[in-house]
């Protein structure tokens, strides 16, 4: 009986998450496009719903809501469904939509989609070889095999995003890094841009006039094509056409220049807007926040290095350690069990919410940057895949932040994975990502003022 009640609660919450994912898709991601293939929207919302359900189960675990056995059942069920989606459905549909974009393969769409999916499965399987993630006593088609590989990909993604985010966040928040841009700079650059456009126009006018006179005189200007055309063009070259090709080259160079100037102008406008924003109250608040984040970022890099160098994996979670410190050193006595439950609930809750929110915002930014009307379906499915893998690995890693008594369910459900490996791998990739982001931002920052000096 209680199992039915528990299941109905789970199903209701899943429907809610599904609805939220649907709305997010429609309002945020696909704001400027028309949804023609509803299957894409459904897959995205389903992935989102099941990922959020996993987090919900963790919260229920901490709070002790629902029956223990029904929780375990739902964990297993949820995990199976998510793995099914991430390993079978989404890659297949990605292959299907990629193939439908290519006109040549229209007839045998399904066949090629299956071929693509098989290639994906091959590489996915091969991914497990170089990593010491499994004990050999598991069978081929067990959940552990799939989860371990999904975990590797997801943890890599998490560490990359987190490393870049940790460095980029203070860089964008702090106004110390803002370059000084005046209105005069912008005007000067715009003037150059318009002058370049005018030069392009005058050259194109000459080309158009030349074409027209040749057309009117009856010479049709044929570009030499093919083998015989090239041989012919060696002996009989029209003087006019040589001139034209020279002008055309100049136009191409000028067009490239105009693109560069446009991008620089856009950059200057964006910087000017940021300068104005930093003068407002909100801007100042973010500036201060940026200083705190930079300290946090340095500390995290330091901890990651220590973990790798001293081969140390934290055994106790921050909550228990914090409580131990307060009890032992500060002498404050309070009910450890009661408080550890609530504090870990809050901590885990914050981690979950910020990671979901951060991921959705990052995905939206990526989507706006790289999608076009043709590839929007493929990109959304790729994002759904990334999101699913990210959330699965968050569950893996969150295990470390929870007190021992709550960890057991995750260990039971996910099977015997080498959790320590995943933490080590996270630290390594985080360090690599953070250091290369620092290098990258440093170079980008250095290069920009030089460009303006040259004006």
């Amino acid at each position, binding site marked *: 009986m209680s199992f039915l009640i528990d299941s109905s609660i789970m199903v209701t919450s899943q429907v809610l998450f599904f609805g939220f994912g649907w709305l997010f898709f429609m309002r945020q991601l696909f*704001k*400027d*496009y*028309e949804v023609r293939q509803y299957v894409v929207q459904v897959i995205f919302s389903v992935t989102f719903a099941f990922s959020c359900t996993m987090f919900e189960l963790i919260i229920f675990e901490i709070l002790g809501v629902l029956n223990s056995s029904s929780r375990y059942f739902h964990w297993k069920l949820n995990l199976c469904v998510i793995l099914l989606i991430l390993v079978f459905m989404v890659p297949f549909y990605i292959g299907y939509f990629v193939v439908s974009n290519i006109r040549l393969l229209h007839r045998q769409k399904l066949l090629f989609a299956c071929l693509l999916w098989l290639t994906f499965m091959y590489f996915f399987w091969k991914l497990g070889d170089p990593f010491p993630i499994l004990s050999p006593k598991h069978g081929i088609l067990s959940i552990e095999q799939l989860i371990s590989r999904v975990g590797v990909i997801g943890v890599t993604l998490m560490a990359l995003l987190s490393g870049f985010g940790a460095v980029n966040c203070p860089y964008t928040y702090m106004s110390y890094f803002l370059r000084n841009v005046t209105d005069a700079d912008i*005007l000067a650059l*715009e*003037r150059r*841009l*318009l*002058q370049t*456009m*005018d030069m*392009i*126009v005058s050259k*194109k*006018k000459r*080309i*158009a*006039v030349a074409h*027209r006179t040749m057309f009117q005189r009856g010479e049709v200007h044929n570009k030499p094509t093919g083998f015989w055309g090239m041989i012919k063009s060696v002996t009989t070259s029209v003087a006019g056409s040589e001139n034209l090709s020279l002008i055309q080259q100049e136009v191409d160079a000028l*067009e490239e220049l*105009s*693109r560069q*100037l*446009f*991008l620089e*102008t*856009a950059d200057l*406008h*964006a910087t*000017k*807007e940021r300068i104005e924003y930093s003068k407002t109250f909100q801007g100042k608040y973010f500036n201060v926040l940026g200083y705190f984040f930079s300290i946090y970022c340095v500390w995290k890099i330091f901890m990651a290095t220590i973990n790798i160098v001293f081969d140390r994996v934290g055994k106790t979670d921050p909550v228990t350690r914090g409580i131990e410190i307060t009890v032992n050193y500060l002498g404050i006595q309070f009910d450890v069990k009661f408080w550890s439950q609530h504090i870990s609930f809050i901590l885990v809750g914050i981690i979950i919410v910020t990671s979901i929110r951060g991921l959705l915002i990052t995905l939206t930014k990526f989507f706006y940057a790289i999608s*076009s*009307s*043709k590839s929007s379906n493929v990109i959304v499915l790729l994002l759904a895949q990334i999101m699913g893998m990210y959330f699965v690995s968050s569950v893996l890693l969150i295990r470390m932040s929870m007190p021992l008594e709550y960890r057991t369910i995750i260990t039971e459900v996910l099977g015997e994975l080498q959790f320590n490996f995943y933490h080590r791998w996270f630290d390594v990739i985080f360090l690599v990502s953070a250091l290369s982001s620092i290098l990258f931002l440093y170079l980008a920052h250095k290069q920009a003022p030089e460009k303006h000096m040259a004006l």
Partner: protein
Amino acid sequence: MAALDRVKVLVLGDSGVGKSSLVHLLCQNQMLGNPSWTVGCSVDVRIHDYKEGTPEEKTYYIELWDVGGSVGSATSVKSTRAVFYNLLNGIILVHDLTNKKSSQNLYRWSLEALNRDVAPAGVLVTNGDYDREQFADNQIPLLVIGTKLDQIPETKRNEVLTRTAFLAEDFNAEEINLDCTNPRYLAAGSSNAVKLSRFFDKIPGFTERKRFGGGALKSLHYD
């Protein structure tokens, strides 16, 4: 060659509707072989015979400025684009017949280009609300072009064409629906070609044309 004065027509629309293909078709009478992203603005030139066939026939260059981007971009991107909206004489609004959102975004595109002109102080009216009053005294001629006509199946054509007719009426403009990969749609003598000529002829007073916008950039305009 008769006196060739300067006429600037903006080609606006969402990303991916086919503005670059359209401009290439209008200027080179050929299909664009390798369409790619337009960064910034690309210009092409079309030679137009004003009042063709009459004694007052004159030949003009028409510059087609194809401005890339999305209508929902950040304010800084919009102010960067605004530098191209100076001194414009006509606007061609391009939308994709297979994508309704691109048609709806045309209102915002036209407001962005026209408001830049009307308020030379540089204040962008960005609430995006469409108000017919603002188009009532608009002197700049508009033309609405729908692309990718070949991708609409025959059965749906009627409802799509009705919708676009309403759209064109809102702008008080003519409309042309075509497929940018097929020069046949703009063949000489076809109704589309006639509409196109009429649009270019509408551009007010080639010799005494009004100058819009201005401010610091006015001095840049040189013949």
